[in-house]
């Protein structure tokens, strides 16, 4: 891998218009990545999902070179229908279009030569990889007091031109005081066997509200890693919803720093897996100051040969008195080959707190099925009804009704 990554890097340096300073910096990140390699099970956080092995097994040799100079054609058929929205379109890792037609242009600032942050807390060698190869980082700033009228949909698409590639994406968002942003990440891949490495950074100032929905629904053979860093100021609220179902392997990490008083973070997620799929969500909520709140709910439905992992950590600093933290993870195992792993963690250094977590896993309740069947449903219908209700619970947590309905129709959950 080392040779490959070095030659690919040289190739990119030659074709791109990086300044000399950037190249030096990027080289540093590259070396840092080469030193540690892809995370493996030797690292505590990757115990349940050995990325190094997964890449070796599913992709084999990765290539890191992406030609960013040639634009790709935007396929308009992928656009979400029945919802007016702003767009950012990624094709094969290249930003093809940024479109904020529904918004006041002077309230949104888009900056494309932004020098991105190179250090996040609790991150790993994949950040160095991203730093070295992400070609451009857009920063989107919402000005003070501005609420976006329509949601922003970020399309992540690939076409069949690429295979066995590594794609690195990067976005930065700054939400100034009292601003409001809704984003939907929509994954739609035609290419197979790629490793996609996404880093987002959200900086929420006082009273800002962020709602981020990640929808990975379309079945594909890619390996996806996504890291969200969320910094929260006073009174800010962040809501993250993850639907983890499409990719072959996926790991979502959410790192949330509650730095301002009365800030709160909500994370809800659904795993719906089948056929050799292996997905993970890892959350770290850092309660760093008094009166902060976090709530997490993760539910899995696991079919044949699938595996889901939930690692959640609530950290409470000495200063963070009156913290309210809650975590719940549940799993239904439908087949004898399915597997659920959880590591819900509490690390608490303040005494006046209310923190708890719960985790439960098992098969569908036979008594409930019997009840439904005695009322005339067949086995399959009863099963579906139960799973439907079980997952609806998470979807109902979405606070934006427009998007809630969209997600409901996307995953075919009925009320």
């Amino acid at each position, binding site marked *: 891998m080392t040779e490959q990554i070095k030659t690919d890097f040289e190739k990119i340096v030659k074709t791109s218009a990086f300044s000399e300073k950037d190249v030096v910096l990027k080289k540093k990140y590259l070396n840092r990545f080469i030193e540690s390699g892809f995370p493996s099970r030797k690292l*505590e956080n990757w115990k349940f999902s050995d990325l190094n092995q997964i890449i070796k097994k599913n992709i084999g040799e990765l290539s890191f070179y992406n030609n960013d100079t040639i634009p790709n054609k935007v396929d308009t058929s992928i656009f979400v229908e029945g919802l007016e929205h702003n767009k950012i379109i990624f094709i094969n890792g290249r930003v093809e279009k940024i479109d904020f037609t529904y918004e006041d242009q002077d309230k949104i600032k888009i900056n494309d030569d932004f020098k991105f942050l190179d250090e996040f807390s609790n991150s790993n060698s994949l950040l160095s990889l991203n730093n070295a190869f992400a070609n451009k980082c857009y920063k989107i700033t919402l000005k003070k007091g501005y609420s976006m009228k329509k949601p922003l949909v970020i399309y992540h698409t690939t076409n069949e031109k690429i295979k066995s590639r590594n794609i690195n994406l990067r976005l930065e968002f700054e939400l100034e005081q009292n601003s409001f942003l809704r984003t939907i990440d929509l994954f739609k891949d035609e290419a197979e066997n790629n490793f996609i490495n996404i880093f987002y950074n959200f900086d929420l100032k006082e009273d800002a509200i962020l709602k981020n929905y990640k929808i990975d629904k379309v079945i594909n053979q890619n390996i996806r890693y996504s890291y969200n860093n969320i910094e929260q100021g006073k009174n800010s609220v962040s809501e993250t919803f993850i639907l983890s179902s499409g990719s072959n392997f996926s790991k979502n990490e959410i790192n949330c720093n509650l730095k301002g008083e009365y800030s709160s973070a909500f994370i809800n997620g659904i795993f719906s897996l089948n056929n050799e799929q292996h997905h993970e969500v890892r959350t770290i909520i850092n309660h760093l100051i008094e009166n902060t709140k976090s709530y997490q709910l993760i539910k899995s439905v696991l079919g044949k040969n699938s595996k889901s992992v939930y690692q959640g950590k609530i950290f409470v600093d*000495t200063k963070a*008195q009156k913290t309210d933290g809650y975590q719940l993870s549940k*799993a239904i*195992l*439908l*087949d*004898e*080959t*399915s*597997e*659920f*792993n*959880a*590591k*819900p*963690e*509490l*690390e*608490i*250094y*303040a*005494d*006046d*707190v*209310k*923190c*708890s*977590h*719960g*985790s*439960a*896993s*098992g*098969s569908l309740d036979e008594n409930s099925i019997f009840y439904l069947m005695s009322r005339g449903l067949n086995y399959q219908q009863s099963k579906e009804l139960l799973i439907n209700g079980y997952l609806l619970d998470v979807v109902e947590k979405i606070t934006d009704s427009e998007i809630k309905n969209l997600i409901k129709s996307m995953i075919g959950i009925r009320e």
Partner: protein
Amino acid sequence: MNTREKDIENLKDYKYGFSTDIENIRAPKGLNEDVIKFISNIKKEPKWMLDFRLKSFKRLQNLKEPDWQKPKYPKIDYQDLYYYSAPKSMSDKPKSLDELDPKLLETYKKLGIPLQEQARLNGIAIDAVFDSVSVATTFKDELTKQGIIFCSMSEAIQKHPDLVKKYLGTVIPTTDHFFATLNSAVFTDGSFVYIPEGVRCPMELSTYFRINASQTGQFERTLIIADKGSYVSYLEGCTAPMRDENQLHAANVELIALDDAEIKYSTVQNWYPGDENGKGGIYNFVTKRGLCKGRNSKISWTQVETGSAITWKYPSCILKGDNSIGEFYSIAITNNHQKADTGTKMIHLGKNTKSKIISKGISAGFSDMTYRGLVDINPKAKNSSNYTQCDSLLMGNKCGAHTVPYIKNKNFNSNIAHEATTSKISEEQLHYCQQRGLNSEEAVGLIVNGFCKEVLQQLPMEFAVEAQKLVGISLEGSVG
């Protein structure tokens, strides 16, 4: 002064902190093959035992000390320790208690451990381990009548080599982690229990461990075998003198339950925790593992951990036999600068296996407490279930409480439920108690005892009373 106050007065300082001035025989300092041969030689061990030790020692050379635990400690220099220390008077083992060095008897009397005949009325058979050797075992005759073997490990190696050979190292193999392997190489003494088929042990068996000599590590090894349909309840207690240095205690405990057998293992651990500034104290790095080998077998661990500078242990159950049951009840209390990283592992291999984990952690002062547990249900363990509850109580904002459970469910017929909470004693509860005339310390004592009740109930009666007091005393001065 009422009794409780008196208790507190007595125990405010670590009451077991005295040391006995007794002549010792020690192995040369350091860890090498010669020391292991010395230990083996002085204990007159057969060749297979020496081979077992040397094999472990060889393996140890390739092992690294683990460092993933939460409480960090300064590096231990394993060459700067004595691996064998015994009272000189024990070199020819006394035939009866009357021949025992009076100083030793005095020590145990101070500790409140009744070794002498007249004090044996309370019906607990005791094996007392002093530094590296077992000094006395009581009630031997009565137990022998029923075919029960309860003796020191060294004696068992001499008298029952077949049993020892058959079971030693089957639950904790010589190829295990660093501290377990270290123990396999240099273990000195400990208890050996064998309960024959169908026998229900008529009394509680108990071992009392004491570290006396300085610069020594205690490496005891306990092996308990419950044959088909038998039952035994075993208690363990520990103390050590106050010293400025940190002393290492790395024991191995192996339990084996065959078909329909039940083993109940209770520990009240009260090693010297170090002074208020965290100086000195015992490093308690113990490997305890039980194997439910037969069908319908049951192993239950109960522990009250109040002592030690650092406690780092995970009493585990391997539920291999179908329908076997594993239980773990724990109270861990840390105060001042104590640190604990404790919990359990429940490994479900057989069908219809059940496990239950109740863990209560209390941290006060500047201490740090971690519950770390593993529940692993294998694909073949159909219809298994686990229930875990771990609660933590924090007193003051200088201490920490952490919960790190690992949950692995690989069987769709099995259920795992896990719950954990962390909180402090609520003002309302305190107010309620105080309103009814209790002072704040009594109120806290009452609430804490209520918090721990589920676990205390599991202890044998004599121990429960002591443990309850210990809980109150360990938290002295942490309120207010």
